[in-house]
């Protein structure tokens, strides 16, 4: 074990000891989660009983939450098939837990799974931040896990949000709605055209076949072609024309005149009185010169020499000002992101601070540990 590794191990051990100390000896502890378990029960009723307003006469099962039925409703009288229950929960704050305890109720209970969750989230946050010091095994753990989980997450999203509703439900509406999408069972219809993406998908998967891999180029070529055509036209229509249109401004700028009370001054015809504004004109002039100079910079046909070179140089200056301003403008938002992470660590996990009073039952924490626990 070399010196550096030793140092790391010591730092980690100290950190863990401090955490354990805080978790055990601080009055309220830290990083605990509380929930209120909720049982949901739904009862299947014939439509005409449940909703008088429903015009359809045929008996259709409508599921109603037991909370919405009258108190004297006899659940036992309903066939077992028509009563479905499951458990869910609401998250609660520590203050609510203490309040419930003081009131002698069991409404709010400690949740092990959510507590573990907060701890894991906090540790992963620290693992990632540790990369800023040096690449290390903890970061590698977080990174490997992130890759696996996120790749699977987006596949699951792609399956349930794209393939099922946009492919399965179009080509096999019956089975799909009977299986996973009852919400659209009345309107789902077979759409033959979706055979095209199906065929393309099969061609794409031909990559996996050793001899027919070249077939996968067909769908790729089709989509690259369509998007090229589509983007060609939409960029020329959208960005290109819009930017030119917005830059056609008057170098002799006028603004409406306002009276002392802030209302617009009108002439006899009822139109607002416009007057020349020097600064407005200068602004417009700079804007137009800037756009033209930057365009010259982008010119490919001429070397940047002579007049062209001078103008192109002006263009670069404009671009540099643009970039400097945009960089600084974005900084504030980036800092907020870090602040939110640190608030999570201090507030949700370490219970060091309690700005919003979520644990507003007098607490004496071990304040000194804070910076060290972060290491």
């Amino acid at each position, binding site marked *: 074990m070399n010196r550096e590794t030793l140092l790391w191990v010591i730092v980690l051990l100290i950190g863990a000891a401090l955490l354990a100390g805080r978790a055990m000896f601080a009055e309220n502890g830290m990083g605990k989660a509380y929930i209120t378990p909720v049982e*949901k029960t*739904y009862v299947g009723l014939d439509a005409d009983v449940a909703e008088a307003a429903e015009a359809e006469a045929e008996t259709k099962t409508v*599921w109603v939450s037991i909370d919405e039925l009258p108190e004297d409703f006899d659940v036992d009288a309903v066939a077992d*098939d028509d009563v*479905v229950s499951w458990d869910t929960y609401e998250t609660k704050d520590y203050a609510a837990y203490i309040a419930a305890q003081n009131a002698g109720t069991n409404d709010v209970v400690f949740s092990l799974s959510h507590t573990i969750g*907060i701890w894991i989230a906090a540790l992963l946050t620290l693992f*990632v931040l540790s990369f800023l010091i040096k690449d290390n095994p903890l970061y*590698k753990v*977080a*990174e490997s*896990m*992130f890759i*696996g*989980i*996120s*790749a*699977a*997450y987006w*596949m*699951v999203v792609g*399956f349930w949000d*794209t*393939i099922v509703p*946009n492919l399965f439900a179009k080509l096999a509406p019956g089975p799909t709605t009977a299986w996973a999408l*009852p919400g659209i069972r009345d309107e789902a219809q077979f759409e033959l055209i979706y055979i095209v*993406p199906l065929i*393309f998908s099969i061609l794409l*998967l031909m990559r*996996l076949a050793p001899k027919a*891999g070249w077939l996968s180029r067909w769908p*790729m*070529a089709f*989509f*690259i072609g*369509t998007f*090229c*055509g*589509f*983007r*060609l*036209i939409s960029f020329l229509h959208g960005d290109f024309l819009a*930017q030119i249109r917005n*830059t056609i401004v008057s170098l002799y700028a006028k603004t409406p005149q306002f009276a002392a009370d802030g209302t617009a001054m009108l002439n006899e015809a009822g139109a607002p009185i416009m007057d020349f504004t020097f*600064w407005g004109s200068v602004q417009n002039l*700079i804007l137009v010169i*800037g756009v033209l100079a930057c*365009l010259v910079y982008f010119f490919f046909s001429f070397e940047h020499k002579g007049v062209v070179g001078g103008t192109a140089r002006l*263009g670069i200056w404009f671009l*540099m000002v*643009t970039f*400097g*301003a*945009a*960089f*600084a*403008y974005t900084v504030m938002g980036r*800092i907020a*992101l*870090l602040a*939110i992470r640190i608030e999570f660590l201090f507030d949700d996990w370490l219970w060091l601070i309690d700005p919003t009073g979520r644990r507003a039952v007098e607490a004496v924490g071990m304040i000194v540990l804070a910076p060290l626990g972060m290491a």
Partner: protein
Amino acid sequence: MKRTIPLLLASIAGFIMIVAYFSPHTESWGEEVAVWFNILAAVAFILGGGNLLKIHLRKVSDRNSGWMYSVITVVSFLVMLFLGLWKFGVNPNPQFPDYGHWAGEYNDSTSPFYWLYEYTFKPLQATIFAMLAFYVASAAFRAFRAKNFEALLLLATAFVVLLGRTAAGVFLTDFIPADGPFAALRLEEMTQYLMNIFNTAGNRAIMIGIALGTASVSLKILLGVDRSYIGSGDD
């Protein structure tokens, strides 16, 4: 054959899209094809995911350095995939409880899939994003140096805008009357002018250039001038 058909397919499809844009009857074809593309992209997960598994499993079987991390990736990938695709532990849809868990939401808040999302995916995502705060700081220290006139402009504008967005900057130029002729020199006003005039001008030119560049690249592909995306001729 292996190159000609794809090239033709791309050209024909592309030019049809251009023509379609000009008729009210066919205008929406672009959106339709976008739906198809999303399907293809979702199906392509099989290729990407398969490749991911292959690479990491090979690292494990070869006992490459760091193979333990590949085990973590593979396990977390497979667990998350199974939980999500199976809708494991998902509560039924309140409107259709008789359909069982299959009609529920895959990210239902009681499911383990949600738990993993909430307590691993989200904090990791947010923390990587938050690392930007550190990198803007180191970039500010390192890159904003007045090496030449261009760099000076970059630096000076960044400086003015940064100051103009804090109370300190406002305080620095507070002596300039807000309604006097030199009001524009107040830092918060300067920030506004920099953003409204220079930033707008620069961005407009960039956008015009981008539109022309996009159109030109697209056209080259449709004309078959640029065919590097299609791969080699004779495999």
